[in-house]
């Protein structure tokens, strides 16, 4: 395979991976810390898309102000959802998952009622094409990658080097022990949910900008998040990063050579294989 073909494929794969990791990170975080499968995760990504549309296209805020505003806005909605739907169902895996399904349906179809079902575009301020030593890169994809990587680094620093981050890691390891040490686990749940939905919102905004924005767009990020966490291990943050990159790169390669549906079949096949050999994922830990 010639380098001329390889570079665009790898570039495309990396920009896909960046978005996937953003979305899957929040999903795996919520499970790792709260033991909740948030079926409405994709809908928070969809909200991010609409938030960007509102701040950037409708209010006319500058892009570099509008995009950072998306995450906390969606995070606030996430907090409301956490209070109303998930908090009463803590530590009940299946009931909280079913309630999350309900939330997902209510949010997606609520968005249809509010915004109508048609697809929209968020015009990107970056429509140039960068040329580096003969290779061309669409500028908006470069921006997406930069934003995603910056958000991921910020998240990593927050979790590794702040007191709150330490509390989050403690709760993820052992909730009862953390509580015995005086950590307010309910507060860490709120922070987790705020962070996770905020990251999903940011991922969704970038996704909506590259592809299209519609009320039902949450389905795709959710399926991707499922795939990624099964590959990487549910609840594992490095696993989400690894799974996201693996999925993004392999999709980019398969898309180019075999088409989009082949890429989906292949990823499902890989999941099945993994479930037979290593049901807890590449970087997860087997549950007792």
């Amino acid at each position, binding site marked *: 395979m010639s380098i001329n073909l390889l570079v665009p494929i790898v570039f495309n794969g990396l920009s896909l991976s960046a978005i996937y990791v953003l979305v899957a990170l929040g999903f795996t975080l919520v499970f790792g810390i709260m033991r909740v499968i948030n079926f409405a995760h994709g809908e928070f990504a969809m909200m991010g898309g609409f938030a960007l549309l509102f701040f950037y296209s409708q209010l006319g805020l500058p892009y570099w102000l509008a995009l950072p505003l998306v995450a906390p806005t969606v995070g606030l909605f996430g907090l409301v959802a956490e209070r109303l739907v998930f908090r*009463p169902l803590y530590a009940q895996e299946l009931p909280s998952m079913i309630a999350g*399904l309900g939330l997902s*349906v209510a949010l997606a179809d609520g968005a249809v009622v509010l915004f109508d079902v048609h697809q929209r575009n968020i015009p990107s301020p970056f429509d140039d094409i960068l040329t580096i030593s003969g290779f061309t890169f669409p500028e908006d994809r470069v921006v997406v990658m930069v934003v995603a990587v910056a958000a991921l680094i910020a998240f990593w620093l927050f979790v590794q080097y702040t007191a709150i981050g330490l509390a989050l890691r403690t709760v993820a390891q052992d909730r009862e022990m953390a509580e015995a040490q005086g950590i307010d686990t309910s507060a860490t749940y709120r922070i987790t949910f705020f962070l996770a939905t905020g990251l999903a919102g940011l991922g969704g905004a970038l996704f909506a900008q590259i592809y299209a924005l519609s009320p039902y767009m949450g389905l795709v990020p959710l399926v991707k998040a499922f795939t990624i966490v099964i590959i990487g291990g549910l609840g594992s943050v490095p696993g989400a990063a690894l799974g996201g990159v693996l999925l993004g790169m392999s999709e980019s390669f398969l898309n180019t050579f075999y088409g989009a549906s082949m890429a989906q079949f292949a990823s499902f096949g890989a999941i099945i294989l993994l479930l037979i050999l290593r049901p807890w994922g590449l970087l997860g830990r087997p549950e007792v």
Partner: protein
Amino acid sequence: MQPVSVSMALPGQARQRVLRWVLIGILAAALLIWPLFTHDLFYTHIATLVLLYCIGAASLHLLVRLGQLSLCHAAFMGIGGYTSALLTTRLGWPFLPAFVASAIVPGVVALALGPILLRLRGVYFVMITYSFGELVRLLFNEWQSLTGGADGIFHIPPPHPFFATSREYYYFALVMAALCVGFTGRILSSQTGRFIDSIRESERLAQSSGVPVLRFKVMVFVLSCGLVGMQGSLMAHYIHYLSPGAFGFSESLNFLVFNVIGGMQTLAGPIIGAVFLVSLPEVLRGWVELQRVIYGVILIVVMLYAPGGLVMIGRRTLELLPIGRGGGS
């Protein structure tokens, strides 16, 4: 003293059994007679849909009782529907063998996948079935030479010229639904049903008591998928049309919601859930989107305040009334 207490218990139990059969008899008579008193085909149409969905809801109940919440049930319904539709339209098979195939093909797929999927429990099983459901929908869409792609399959014949109208089909559906739901109920009340409950409560305990857990789970999965495949076939030959959109995630979700809202502990739950949730949207047609929003909200509210579903709410109200107290469990 032991035998005395047994003989004391018998008359009460016998009375309850008689009472139950009387109730079933009244219900059956009502279901048989009411269409004769209405000329509005809209009602028989809705009733037919309700009956067909009862099959799928009851079949998913088998898996729910096992503790495995599947989100690809509609995919198996689709496999059954497409099997029977393709066999009758393309190969010109008569209805009956095609109908039998519509149970066998999903069953065989379930038999192949079951040993892998059913090793997973809880949320892992939910996620993998969700992905599988999406995959099957994609397959219906993309395999155009076989399935007709997004356009679907038209002109699927009725099972028999006699069942061409909705009132006649209603009776056909009634018989089929009664057979399928009865079969499900029979499984649940048999020794197998107790194995199913034991697996849900504790897989390890069941295993150590000598229940071949995985084999049982696969068997129940195969039965459940075969039954819902029959629903797919019956739907296809009733509506005379099939398309991939009818077998996606939202349809799988519906089956789960019937169980959740009706109540997951007894077979009556999914039946009641299906009756309410299939007939209500048909009656409230004008507001499709708002309806789905309400649907989502109801799901959350039931989980928060009435995890036992409508059956539980019904039982509570009966217990409050002085009459219902004797007949309680």
